[in-house]
């Protein structure tokens, strides 16, 4: 019965469909290629549209405004209206700029943004490219995205654009280091770079395969990496660094609108601008998806086996539901932070990456190593204590002096 | 069928292109780019020999390439730092004009 395992419903349906066509290997090959790419290209832009609406609504409510409410029910058609507007706008290219690179930059930025999605495990057996080098592939392809941002800044032949581009490079290169170092702990304790293996390692398989429903739920939650000391700090470092990596507030210096107009986006209009915007959001999805995979248990969530099923692997709620729920929770946290924190200064930004996040991530690796060898009942509290002390200590030595207390004569 | 020869010819072509860049261009950064191209051509050679060699399970070609990439990264950082330092001194990126040893 195909309904035995709701979790694998789509996978099984696709498998049966492909089995029907097994006489035509070329068709099957093409279909496999399309099935692993088209859903990504269809679903994530749709998520992007929903997120722009969510972001505008959320930010508006945070500032006690109403937000878009004209296009469609509760303004839900606003993304469509924005898209049409962007398509119809004039595409302006600066005459002194570099025509070819000005055109190439948004396209080149979109390619890595979409490609990295392929290594994310959306559910069991639903990883477009279950590569053995998954995590490193993610960072390798992700690191390409600095180049188009620079090219956009340079090709516009505009001071603000160039400043934004240079800021973007400096920021992305610096924050990649804590980002990678915080994932090292997960890779170390899982013993694999494969994203599927990393998710499977965050489940207590004996409990999940057992008969007790409560244990099935707990077995898919308790072993998430975020509940360990190194995982908790690692997740925090990863999240903060990923905010900087995708140029979100409070690290949106490359496109700081109050200082340098819009940074590397200044000279872009129409659909090229929309492409930049989309690439930014899709890389935000990708990096949140990686955070979910590495620290928040990927597709596993409070889930039980359907009562009518005999398959021990079967799950009631499909795994991708949990994956997307967690991913959107992180995106909402990003929006919340955007509505709260003001932008950093450039020197603070660099200092935060190099003097605070990087040493903390390095210490975290040592703690993770010790945690692996110590018994859990020592390692767990001791890890938290050590990391908390390090956190406070690093904060203290980075605080700097406020200078002499100012007095205002006329105020 | 792609054989070892194809990779070797490709690698030789790339190496010569890199060498051409180093020998004929005047700009210091382009000279460095030529050196990077040559290093990459050598890496391709190493991997091709590993792939078509008899001992796939030893990973010697892979590891050699890994180390050579690391060395190339170090070389690039030091080389570009030197380009900047030399530029600051001579006020030109032109390697032809850097023809004095002191002052």
């Amino acid at each position: 019965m195909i309904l035995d395992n709701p979790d694998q419903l789509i996978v099984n349906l696709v498998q049966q469909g492909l089995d029907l066509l097994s006489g035509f290997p070329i068709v099957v090959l093409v279909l496999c290629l399309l099935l692993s790419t088209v859903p990504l290209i269809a679903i994530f832009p749709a998520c992007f549209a929903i997120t722009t609406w969510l972001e505008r609504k959320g930010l508006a409510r945070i500032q006690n405004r109403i937000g878009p409410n004209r296009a469609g029910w509760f303004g839900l058609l606003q993304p469509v209206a924005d898209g049409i507007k962007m398509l119809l706008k004039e595409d302006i290219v600066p005459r002194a700029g570099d025509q070819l690179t000005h055109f190439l930059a948004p396209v080149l930025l979109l390619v890595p943004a979409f490609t990295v999605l392929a290594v994310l495990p959306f559910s069991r057996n639903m990883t477009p490219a279950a590569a053995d080098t998954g995590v490193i592939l993610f960072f390798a392809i992700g690191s390409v995205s600095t180049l188009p941002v620079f090219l956009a800044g340079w090709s516009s032949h505009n001071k603000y654009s160039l400043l934004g581009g240079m800021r973007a490079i400096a920021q992305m290169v610096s924050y990649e280091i804590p980002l990678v170092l915080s994932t090292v702990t997960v890779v170390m304790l899982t013993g694999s770079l494969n994203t599927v293996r990393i998710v499977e390692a965050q489940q207590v398989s004996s409990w999940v395969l057992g008969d007790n429903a409560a244990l099935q739920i707990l077995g898919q939650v308790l072993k998430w990496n975020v509940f360990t000391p190194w995982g908790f700090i690692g997740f925090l470092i990863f999240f903060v660094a990923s905010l900087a990596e995708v140029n979100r507030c409070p690290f949106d210096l490359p496109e700081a609108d109050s200082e340098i107009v819009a940074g590397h986006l200044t000279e872009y209009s129409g659909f090229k601008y929309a492409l930049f915007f989309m690439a930014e959001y899709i890389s935000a999805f990708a990096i949140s998806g990686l955070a979910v995979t590495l620290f928040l248990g990927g597709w596993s969530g409070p889930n039980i086996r359907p009562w009518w099923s005999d398959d021990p692997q079967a799950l009631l709620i499909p795994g991708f539901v949990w994956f997307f729920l967690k991913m959107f929770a992180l995106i909402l946290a990003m929006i919340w932070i955007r509505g709260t924190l003001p932008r950093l200064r450039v020197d603070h930004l660099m200092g935060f990456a190099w003097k605070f996040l990087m040493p903390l991530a390095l210490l975290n690796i040592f703690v993770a190593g010790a945690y692996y060898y110590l018994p859990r009942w020592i390692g767990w509290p001791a890890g938290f204590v050590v990391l908390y002390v390090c956190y406070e200590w690093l904060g203290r030595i980075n605080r700097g002096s406020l200078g002499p207390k100012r007095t205002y004569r006329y105020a | 069928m792609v054989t070892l020869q194809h990779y070797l010819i490709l690698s030789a072509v790339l190496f010569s292109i890199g060498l051409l860049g180093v020998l004929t261009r005047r700009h210091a950064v382009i000279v460095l780019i030529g050196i990077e191209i040559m290093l990459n051509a050598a890496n391709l050679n190493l991997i091709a020999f590993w792939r078509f060699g008899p001992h796939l399970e030893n990973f010697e070609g892979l590891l050699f390439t890994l180390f050579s990439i690391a060395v190339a990264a170090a070389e690039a950082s030091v080389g570009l730092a030197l380009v900047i330092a030399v530029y600051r001194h001579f006020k030109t990126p032109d390697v032809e004009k850097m023809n004095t040893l002191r002052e």
Partner: protein
Amino acid sequence: MNAAFLILSLLAVAGALLAIRLHNLVHATLSLMFFFVALAGLFVLLMAEFIAAVQILVYVGAVGILILFAIMLTPHVTGENHGRLCSRGWIWGLAGAGAVFLILIAPVLLMAGLDTPPATAALSPSVREIGLVLMTPYGIALLVMALLLTAALVGAVVAASPPARDKDEPKP
């Protein structure tokens, strides 16, 4: 001949040629990036997936960006008003490169007569195996590499930092 190999090798050769022939340095760096990516594709064809990832991470993500930074830190470098592209005596450079090419290609062409061993059965080494080899027999090499990278880091900072100002000199 394999279509993937043909396309990737043409891309690599075109990227390398453009990288050394273009006037505009940023364009040259861009085509160098295409060369790096094409080479990573070739590595994937040769079943060295991990090396391909490292190639993109190090070359496109780090070395290329470093070159761009160097270009941006030295003013008057991006312009195309350089006049001559090649150095004096470029003809000798061309001759030298051609000679090296002939020397490199000769053994390959001579070898074409011999029967080469066919490629062994597909084996995609897992990262775990590479890591184990890297840690046990090549551990010392790894440590030396770490030392080299640290030295390069310090050296680059020292070389690129501006010369120290004299203490007697009045501050601007």
